[in-house]
C-alpha cells in the first residue's frame, strides 16, 4: 500500500513541477502579448506597418496562456469552489466532498479533452488556416491549446488517484492539505508577501 502511495505522490509531484513551468510560460506569454500589441499599435501609428494579425495572434496567446496554466491552477487550489458548508463538515465527511468535487472536475475535463480532440481532428482534416493576413495554420495554436488540456487531465487524474489511495490508507489529513480550497486569507498572504519582497529588494 505504502509503495503504491509513494509512487502516486511522486507522479503527482512530477506533473505539478512540469505544470508550474508551463504556467510560467503562460504568464510570460501575457507579457509578450502586451509588448506585441503595444508595438503593433505604435508601428501602425508611426510607421504605417502592422502584423495584420494582431487580433488573431493575441487571441492564440490567450488560449495558450489559459490552457497551459490550468493544471498549475488546480495544483495551487486556485479553481473556485464554494467551501462555506464543506468547511463546517467533520474531516471524515469532508474528504468525501473533496473526492466528489474532483470526480466532477474529471468529468468536465473528459468533456473538454474529447471536444479539443474533435477540434484538432477537424482542423487537420480541412488543413484550416485563419482569416488574418498571415494565414496561420490553426493546428499550431489549437495544438498548444489542446496540450494544456491534456496536462490538466493528467494532473487531475494523478491528484484523484492520490486522494483515493490516501482515502484507502486512512490518511484524511493529507487529503485535506492537498484539497483544502484557497481561502481569502491564503490569497491575501500571497499578495502581502509580494509587497514585502518588493520592499526588501529596494533595501538590498
Amino acid at each position: 500500500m505504502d509503495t503504491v502511495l509513494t509512487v502516486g505522490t511522486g507522479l503527482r509531484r512530477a506533473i505539478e513541477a512540469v505544470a508550474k513551468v508551463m504556467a510560467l510560460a503562460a504568464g510570460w506569454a501575457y507579457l509578450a502579448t502586451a509588448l506585441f500589441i503595444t508595438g503593433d499599435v505604435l508601428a501602425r501609428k508611426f510607421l504605417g506597418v502592422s502584423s495584420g494579425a494582431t487580433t488573431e495572434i493575441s487571441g492564440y496567446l490567450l488560449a495558450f496562456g489559459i490552457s497551459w496554466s490550468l493544471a498549475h491552477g488546480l495544483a495551487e487550489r486556485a479553481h473556485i469552489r464554494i467551501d462555506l458548508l464543506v468547511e463546517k463538515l467533520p474531516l471524515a465527511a469532508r474528504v468525501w466532498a473533496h473526492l466528489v468535487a474532483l470526480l466532477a472536475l474529471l468529468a468536465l475535463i473528459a468533456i473538454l479533452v474529447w471536444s479539443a480532440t474533435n477540434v484538432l481532428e477537424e482542423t487537420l482534416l480541412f488543413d484550416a488556416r485563419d482569416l488574418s493576413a498571415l494565414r496561420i495554420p490553426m493546428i499550431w495554436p489549437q495544438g498548444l491549446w489542446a496540450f494544456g488540456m491534456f496536462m490538466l487531465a493528467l494532473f487531475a487524474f494523478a491528484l484523484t488517484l492520490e486522494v483515493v489511495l490516501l482515502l484507502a490508507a486512512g490518511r484524511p489529513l493529507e487529503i485535506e492539505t492537498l484539497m483544502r480550497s484557497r481561502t481569502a486569507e491564503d490569497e491575501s498572504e500571497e499578495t502581502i508577501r509580494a509587497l514585502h519582497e518588493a520592499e526588501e529588494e529596494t533595501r538590498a
Partner: protein
Amino acid sequence: MIILAVFVLFLGLFVWASLTGHAPDIAIWPIIGLSLLFAGCFAAGVYIAAILGVLGVVTGFVFSDRPFYNFIGSVAWTTSSNYVLIALPLFLLMGELLLRSGVSAKLYKALNLWLNRLPGGLLHTNIASCAMFSAMSGSSIATAATMGSVALPQFEDTAYDKRVVLGSLAAGGALGSLIPPGTILIIYALLTNTSVGGLYAAALVPAALVTLFCIGVIFVHGLRHPLPDSGVRVPLSAKLKGTVGIVPTLILIALVLGTIYGGLATPTEAAAFGVAGAAFFALIEGKLTLRALNESALAAARNTAMVGLILIGAFVLNYVLTSLRVPQNVAGMIADLPVPGWVIMAAIVLVYLAMGTIMEGFSMVVTTIPVIFPVVVQLGYDPIWFGVMVTLLVEIALITPPDGTVMYVLQGLRKSGPITDIFQGVIPFVGAYLAVIVLLLFFPGLALMFL
C-alpha cells in the same frame, strides 16, 4: 441562509406560474430537478467550472435531440481565444507589476499633502489614493493590498479610530472593480456581448458618486470626532514639490483610461499599454527584477486560468441553454408575471446582495448573468446600466462579511487585532455603496449620460 430563502421564493414563484398556466412549453419538473442538483453541487463544494460545464452537458442530453456535443469544442476554443478577454490577463499583470513597483507610496504621500487639513484628515487620503490607484488597476485585491500597505503604517500611534481607518481602506479597495479599468466589467461585456468601452464610460459617474459618498462618510466622522490640530503647516512650495509624486499615476491613467475614452485604443490595446507603462515605472524605481517579473507572470497566469476554466464551463452551459431557448423562455415568463418590473429588479438586487455574503464576485457574475441578463433586457432595462449595477453589487460582496476578500487582505496587512474591527468599520461605507445603488435604480441616467 438568505440565499436559501430567496431560492425557495423563486422556486415557489416558478411552480405557481406553472400551475396557473404561465409556464413556457418546456417541462417544468426536470428543470426544477436540475436546479436542485445545481444548488446541491454548489453547497457540496464542487468546482464551479465543473458544475457549469457538466450541468450544461447533462441538460443537453436530457432536453435536446440535436447533436449539441459536437459544438462544445468550438465553444471552448472561441472562449479561450476571445480578443476582448485578453484585456483580463493584461490588467491583472499590470496590477501585479504596480503592486511591486512603489508607485503607490509616492501617490499616497502626494495626496496626503493636500487632504490632511480636512475634517477626517488622513482618512480622505485613503479614499482618494485608492480611487486613483483603481483608475490604473482593475483589481480590488491589488488596490486594497497596495494602498493598505502604504497607508496602515501612517496611522500607527495616531488618535485615528482604527476601525474607520480599516473601513475606509476596505471601501477604497473595493473601488478597484468599479473604477475603470475593472476586470468584472470585462467579464460582463464578454458574457452579454456589450461594449467594454461603453461599460467603462457608464461606470464613471457612479464611481465618482461612491467616492464622494465615502468622502462624505469620513467628513461626518471627522466632524463628530475632531482630532487635535497637529499644528504642522506644510509650506506651499513643499506641497508643490511633493505633488510630483503623483505624476507616474497620472501618466498611467492617461495611458490606459485616456486612450480608451479618447477613442484612441480598444480596452485590450489600452491594457497592453498599461502593462508596458507599469513595467517602465517599475524599472525606473529599480523594482523590475526577474523575480518580480516571474512572480507577476505566474500570478496573472493562475488567476486567468481560474477565470478561463469557469468561463469555458459557463459558455458550454450557455450554449446548451440558449439552443433550448431557456433564457428567452424564463425572461418571457418573468416579464409576464403580474408584478411591475421594478419589483423584479429589486428582487434581483436582493439576490445579489444575499449571494455576495457567501460567494466571491466573479463567480457570482458568471453563474447568474447568462440567465438574469435576458430577464433584465426583457424588462426594458439598459444592458450597460445593468452591468454597472452588477459591478456595484459585486463590490459590496467584497466588503461584506464573512467572505469579503478585501477585508482579509487588510487583516493580513495589520497582523494584530480582531477582524471584527474591519467588519464594523466598513459598515458606514457599505451604506455609501447602497446609496449609489438606490440612486441608480431611480435615476438610470446617471450611468447612461456619457453614452
